[in-house]
């Protein structure tokens, strides 16, 4: 499983189209901040606690591109067949691929949020809550797009299907952001729930993967 994991991670890191999108939201915000600060001073500060969380949500949604490519993409490129002929179990192959999907969005969104937090002089609470939110959303989105990726025949169809629920998540993020950040109740509830849902979706996906192959 470790070899598959390292192989998948290497493929993700070698492919700029997978990780460059993670850089856009924070870089744009930093540029905006610099421009506005230079014009209006501290009064023109663009960062609000809600914005940090929104960026976390936005970065989490980008993980769908990785998931779509990992399963639908392998099938489309006819590279999965050779992996299935390797002396490893389907379970090892599946989890090796799955675990490689998480580090890049989690690490890059963590780094981006921390950088923005440093620049925005927010409370540490806001950073931790935003990180938890980003991780929760990342797990949920990966779990759902995994299902989509296993049903889709091509990366394109997987990406089109993913857009639908990604939009829903982004709108929800905007709607619940203030309430979420107000107390510790929601962050501490949402993360374990997201973990549980993710685990359930992964088990369903594993069954589907085993049935397909």
């Amino acid at each position, binding site marked *: 499983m470790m*070899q598959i994991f390292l192989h998948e991670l290497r*493929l993700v890191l070698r492919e700029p189209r997978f990780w460059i999108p993670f850089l856009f939201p924070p870089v744009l915000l930093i540029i905006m901040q610099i421009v506005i600060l230079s014009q209006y001073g501290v009064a023109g500060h663009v960062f609000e606690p809600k914005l940090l969380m929104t960026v976390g949500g936005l970065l989490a949604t980008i993980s769908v591109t990785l998931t779509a490519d990992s399963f639908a993409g392998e099938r489309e490129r*006819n*590279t999965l067949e*050779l992996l*299935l002929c390797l*002396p*490893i179990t389907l379970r090892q192959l599946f989890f090796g691929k799955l675990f490689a999907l998480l580090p890049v969005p989690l690490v890059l969104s963590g780094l981006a949020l921390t950088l923005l937090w440093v620049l925005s002089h927010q409370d540490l609470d806001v950073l931790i809550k935003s990180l938890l939110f980003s991780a929760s959303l990342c797990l949920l989105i990966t779990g759902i797009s995994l299902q989509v990726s296993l049903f889709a025949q091509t990366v394109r169809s997987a990406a089109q299907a993913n857009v639908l629920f990604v939009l829903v998540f982004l709108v929800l993020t905007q709607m619940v952001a203030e309430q979420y950040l107000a107390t510790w109740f929601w962050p501490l509830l949402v993360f374990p729930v997201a973990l549980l849902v993710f685990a359930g979706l992964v088990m369903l996906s594993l069954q589907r993967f085993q049935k397909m192959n």
Partner: protein
Amino acid sequence: MAGIAFESVSYAYPGRKNNALSGVDLVVPESSIFALLGPNGAGKTTLLRVLCGRLAGYTGQLHIPMPWLNSQGILDARSYGVLIENPGVYGRLTVLEYLEFFGKFYAIPDLKQRIKILAERVKLSELHRKMSALSLGTRQKVQIVRALLHKPPLVLLDEPASNLDPIARDEVWNLVREYNQQYGCTFIICSHVLTDLEQHCTHLGFLRNSELIANGTLDAIRAQYPMQSKVTIRLGSLGNTGLTSHELEYDCADPAKENPRRIQQLVEQGADVIEVNVARQGLSDLYRRLVQGDFV
């Protein structure tokens, strides 16, 4: 001679009415180079996938030598190397990285050295080039090296010659023969390049419409399905044969019986026989007649 035996193996893909394999009885002797022939869609690739354990739910029996089986009773992935038709590649990896990735699953001692030796054998010199930058023929060589990396006792090659130039094809066939003779590897090869198969394969199986229609050595199949040979006799003087041409051509099923009779007759009529040429029908002719059902 032990080997792989398919006994009345049938398989239908889920959701399809027609069988992809219907009652296939086939024996692949161990250490043979077995050519699996048939038109597109005849069931060749399905047969290989059944053998690899990639398709569950087939009926019939599949006998595989014990040392090649895993604990679940199916062909152990360590026992075979496979080249699938049109395999995808990871374009961002170099050839060496690609081969190392696959090789690591088989715990091959001194993997890099092994890759280099095999690469040299097929004149694959671009080990540090990205896979995406390779020509289709070079990619094919990479796949052949990958399939042979762990010296498996069974090698399944689906269209190994596709995209290869004639010299590269010779290199690959030389490697196949070397592995067969030196290590006793059994090869099952699907290809449409019949001249290569006729030259290099020891046994053949013909599939048509999901059924096996012939199986055995080429001579055995020829004996089972006799075909006419084209005989040309070149004559010096024509004597009183009544012929107007110095070349006499005829088709016959058994030249060994027919030719002496004809030659004796010509000599008796005063003709000078200079040369006798017998053109046996090749695998290509046999293939065409078998798959077109001319023998039925």
